[in-house]
């Protein structure tokens, strides 16, 4: 355990691709967790944003460490724009849902189920 810990402390300041990927994974997991656990549609949307940004971090990281061109960063910018658009549409939908059902609880909005 002590050996593992020492190795970890040695590894941690030595910033490289894995660090970014781990952050990204944590962020992705938090996003998924938010999507799955939250009942409020707004919070679900926020989870989605987290997932998207986790992907962005991946893009940037791969672009910085692996790539020879700017493609990754380009994709990240693209995703940010996409996320903005998505947020706009999704919020509009949520607004409409609220109008219709008087709630933003996704569990109660289940008329598509049947």
């Amino acid at each position, binding site marked *: 355990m002590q050996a593992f810990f020492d190795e970890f402390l040695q590894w941690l300041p030595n910033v490289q691709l894995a660090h970014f990927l781990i952050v990204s994974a944590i962020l992705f997991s938090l996003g*998924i967790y938010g*999507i*799955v*656990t939250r009942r409020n549609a707004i919070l*679900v949307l926020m989870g989605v944003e987290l997932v998207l940004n986790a992907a962005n971090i991946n893009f940037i990281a791969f672009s910085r460490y692996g790539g020879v061109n700017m493609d990754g960063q380009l994709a990240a910018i693209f995703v940010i724009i996409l996320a903005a658009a998505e947020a706009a549409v999704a919020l509009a939908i949520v607004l409409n849902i609220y109008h219709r059902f008087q709630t933003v609880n*996704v*569990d109660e909005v*289940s008329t*598509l*189920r*049947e």
Partner: protein
Amino acid sequence: MSQELLLTLSLIVLVAPLLGFTLVIFFGKKLPRQGDWLETSIISIALVLSFIILFQKLTHYHDQTLSLNFTWVDFHNVPGIGPMKIVLGFAIDNLAAIMLVVVTLISTVVHFFSIGYMQGDVRYSRYFAFLGIFSFSMLLIVLSNNLFLLYVGWELVGLSSYLLIGHWYEKKSASDAAIKAFIVNRIGDIGFFTGIMILFATFHTFGLQEIFDGIKNGTIPYGSEGWLTAAGVLIFCGAVGKSAQFPLHVWLPDAMEGPTPVSALIHAATMVAAGVYLVARTFPMMTADALMVIAYIGAITAFISATIAIAQNDIKKVLAYSTVSQLGYMVMALGVGAYTAGVFHLVTHAMFKAGLFLGSGSVIHAMHHALHHQNDHHTDAQDIRNMGGLKSKMPVTFWTFVVFTLAISGVPLTSGFLSKDEILAGTLAFSGLTGHSLVPLIGFFVAGLTAFYMFRVVILTFLGEHSDPHRLEHIHESPKVMTLPLVLLAILSVFIFYSFNPFSAAGWIAHAVERPESVVPAVVAAPSAEVFGEAAHHAHGTAMMLSLLVAGLGMLTAFATYRWKKINADKIAAHVAPLHKFLMNKWYFDELYNGVVVNGTLTWTNILRWFDDTIVDGAVNGAGSVTKVSSFISGKFDSIVIDGFVNMTAYLSGFAGLVLRKVQTGKIQTYIIFAVFSVMIFYFAFRIW
């Protein structure tokens, strides 16, 4: 007259009755008088043409055979045989020309007689139509120069005989007799057909002349004289059936169920003589052994039927057995080699036997009328014991009947004397040459019997007292249309038409129909025509004396017994009761055949039916049940196992659906969890791998 014209005329004679048949059978009911005049005039024209043909043939082409051939089928190249053509045709030689006249003459006479006899019959036009088809088929036999057309005609006369015997088919006995005649004839025809096939297999032709030529050139069936004898005997089998020879003679007496003119035409004069004609036609190919068989069959037939005839009481039955006996005579004549005598007897017999039958028809006609007048439906109109004393009432019938009886008994100055005498001389010559003395012995004995039973009929029918004097008053002579044919036939039964010398048969027929030379190899040939003719000539005087003696004896006995009552017939019959009963019952031939052939066949068919019912049907039914059981099992298998599988699949699907549907919550979150976990599972799975 040219040959072509003569042949054309003969073809007209052949086809005319067929035309008449066609017209009358289809339109008979619509024609005036139901078409009897049509048939009668057609056959009369045929008679005139036949006379012309005969005259021309004898005067211009005496020693020639006029023939007309045509290719019926050409098989081209038959494997193993080479080119094969079936050539059929017609031929007129002296024999055919004479037969042509005999057939058309008797046919014409019978047609005229029938107009009177069949008046008011229910199927009057049909009757005449059948007479037409009969004439056609008989003429086909006569004119054919090959076995094929001969066989066709042969079967057609069988058919017309069947139709005419069964003319009154409402009567069970008549329809039975018709069937019997047909079937018994078939038995003979099987032999005939086999004989034809043996010859065809060897010579690949049906033409008689070609076959004779082939035999003459040394080709014989399968290289063995035995086969040639077999072929001859088998062809003779056909004659045995058609000419009612022992052992197939049983149908002819029963055939008397037909109308009497039919009996005269078909069952006395022409059709039954076809067998004799056939043997005469195929005479050159008969070996000595075959001729021996023919001679003995003829002799046995003559003897058996003559003995039966003396114990019969039905006038037509007596005449029928007399016919069988006389046919036996002709066959015997051909068998012993007296070819000319046999053919001559065929001609003379045709005249007087047709006359006898027509005479009996006239008597029966009168009896029917009288019985009808008395409202008597029980007395048998054909039983001679119910007759007697008809002489004064029916003089024409009586006197013509006497002439015919004299002719058949062989009394001088009649035609029968000439031909019978020749036959007896022939049998004597035969026994002299071969040592078979049984044949002439039977010949003379039968001659005596014939005279006896024929005079018995005459005495019982026409002389003495009638059994019922009251009935006699109602008996009248038959109309002219019936008596004139009788007179004509009676005239034709006088010697002058056949030979100018009343004691010698050497007239135009003997000259025209000479015995043809045998074509069979010399080792199996009968004594040649010269040798035989010499012997017959020597035997002639003896034969004449003896035949006169036996005929006189027979007549005397008949008169002594039935006219002068010096001999009591009943007493004698009682003395030899078993014999009398034996003869009365026709030697028990019918019973024998019923017992052996009919019952044998029935037993055999019953066995076969049992076999069919139990074994074959059992097998079929067994197969059916096995199939049924197996299909039941397979059905159960289907409904339980296969259907079970299918149902189980469906049930499982349903169950799976029921389970999986819980997963389908419709909540995004759940799906995302699934997705994430799936990805994680995949991830780890691939990592491990």
